[in-house]
């Protein structure tokens, strides 16, 4: 029965260790680069820029020795929503009304522009998903601790508890798989004594009460485990902070500098394309 196994598939992205140059980058580099790119993509959505990032991601995947088909698989699950968003845009977007009208009726008015906007939205989602997938494919979740700690380090000067935040992230990431095993166990246990978690039609609160046999022990068991974890860490004299020796040491090297500069360049290009309205120019030229 699939009902009881779905919980196991909770992973935020899959790590695919190939040991490539990209994989060996300092975690902070990968996080910074991904973060910058995603931010740039959120701010600017020019077709030309998106195509540029698409091509560069392809190059990155090659360098990371990740099969492009494998990375593209992540997009498949997103396709329906991308289509939905695009269709809504085409049908209802009330963009500038200049230009030809292809079809008009009811509240719907189709212009070539609508298709451009919808296409851009869809392309942007595809590229965003691809970039984030790429990041998760080449970054193990345990690297995130070191990465976030390093990235936040400048903030410690103004008293920001960077190390603590990194620890919180580690605990959370380590705890996720445990949580899914725990939830699976609880779903099975409660089903074994007649619980059904509210299939079919029923009121909202009835449904909530049907979920209580799962939700309440899930929280309580998590808190209990937390308690145990605190004891275990204290028993091993965990103190944290600057003097802690780390099991994994990451050295930022020349490749990291190149990677950051490269990303900076791309982000700069994207923003230039956005503010110089390159798309508009190409668009009017094409018309």
């Amino acid at each position: 029965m699939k009902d009881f196994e779905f919980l196991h598939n909770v992973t935020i992205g899959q790590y695919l260790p190939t040991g490539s140059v990209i994989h060996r980058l300092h975690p902070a580099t990968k996080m910074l680069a991904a973060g910058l790119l995603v931010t740039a993509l959120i701010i600017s959505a020019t077709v030309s820029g998106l195509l540029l990032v698409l091509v560069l991601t392809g190059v990155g995947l090659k360098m990371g020795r990740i099969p492009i088909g494998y990375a593209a698989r992540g997009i498949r699950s997103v396709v329906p929503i991308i289509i939905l968003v695009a269709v809504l845009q085409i049908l209802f977007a009330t963009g500038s009304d200049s230009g030809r009208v292809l079809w008009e009726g009811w509240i719907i008015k189709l212009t070539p522009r609508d298709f451009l906007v919808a296409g851009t939205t869809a392309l942007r989602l595809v590229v965003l998903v691809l970039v984030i997938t790429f990041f998760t494919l080449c970054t193990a979740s345990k690297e995130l601790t070191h990465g976030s700690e390093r990235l936040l380090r400048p903030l410690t000067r103004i008293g920001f508890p960077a190390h603590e935040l990194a620890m919180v992230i580690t605990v959370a990431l380590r705890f996720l798989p445990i949580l899914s095993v725990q939830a699976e166990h609880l779903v099975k246990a409660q089903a074994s004594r007649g619980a059904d978690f509210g299939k079919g039609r029923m009121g909202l609160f009835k449904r909530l009460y049907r979920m209580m046999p799962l939700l309440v022990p899930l929280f309580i068991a998590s808190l209990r485990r937390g308690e145990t974890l605190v004891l275990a860490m204290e028993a091993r004299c965990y103190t944290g902070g600057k003097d802690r020796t780390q099991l994994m040491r990451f050295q930022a090297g020349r490749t990291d500098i190149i990677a950051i500069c490269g990303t900076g360049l791309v982000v700069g290009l994207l923003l230039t394309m956005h503010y110089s309205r390159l798309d508009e120019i190409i668009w009017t030229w094409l018309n």
Partner: protein
Amino acid sequence: MNDPIVEIRNLGHVYMAGTPFARKSLDAVSLAVAEGEFIALIGPTGSGKSTILQHINGIYTPQTGSVRVLGRDLGEPGTDLTLLRREVGLVLQNPEQQVFERYVGDDVSFGPRMSGMSGKELTGRVRWAMDQVGLDFKTYKDRPTFALSGGERRKVGLAGVVALKPRILLLDEPTAGLDPAAHEELLECLARLRLQGTTMIMATHSMDDVAALAERVVVLDKGRAMLDGPVREIFSRADEIRSLGLELPVATAVVHELFGRGIGIRRDVLTLTEAEDAILVALGVRI
């Protein structure tokens, strides 16, 4: 022998089939259980004990092979598994975790309540179930569940399944992690349930529990049923058991050790009293 109450034929199961994490856990297992039997499932860790139990109450439905329980074919899509689970109770490992209601009485009554029982009948059922597991109804019914000890909470979890009055009771390592006194009490409780005529199948690592309770043993290894027979017969095959990395019950191990040192002694011994007798006979003190 009547028709078997549980009939498993060539059951195979792969966890997370179709993913890179696929893992074969059962490989053509066959097993028939008659009404009223007490069967122990033993085998090294990961041998598939829990997986089999979860097939008998319909948590998993057969991927290959077939499972018939109480005359119902669990592979049949139309089989009502929720109804089945009221007659086939499964107590998962650490049943204390499934306790979610605020008061003991309410948690024990959850299963029967979900099947529509209420009023005095429900109270009577809860009283009965709590008696079975050795929790005094008056003392415990209004106790807050969070204020129980670990052993008490496990009994509440067990009572929550027993309250369904299942015809078949499946137990997954019911005594794991209990202190000796609680362990002893739990064995008594299982013996009591067995006297009621409940068919029981218990997965366990404790060979002494097997010796104390079971009539028949099924030995699993790497998802295959290796040995199946009466307890005495199975444990007399000490070498085969040991070669699978399993222990013998303490008493059996002692007489085998004596036999190995050249003392002529009966070896079909399970309990300490029997071992004592056998030793006395071997020493010529008793005939």
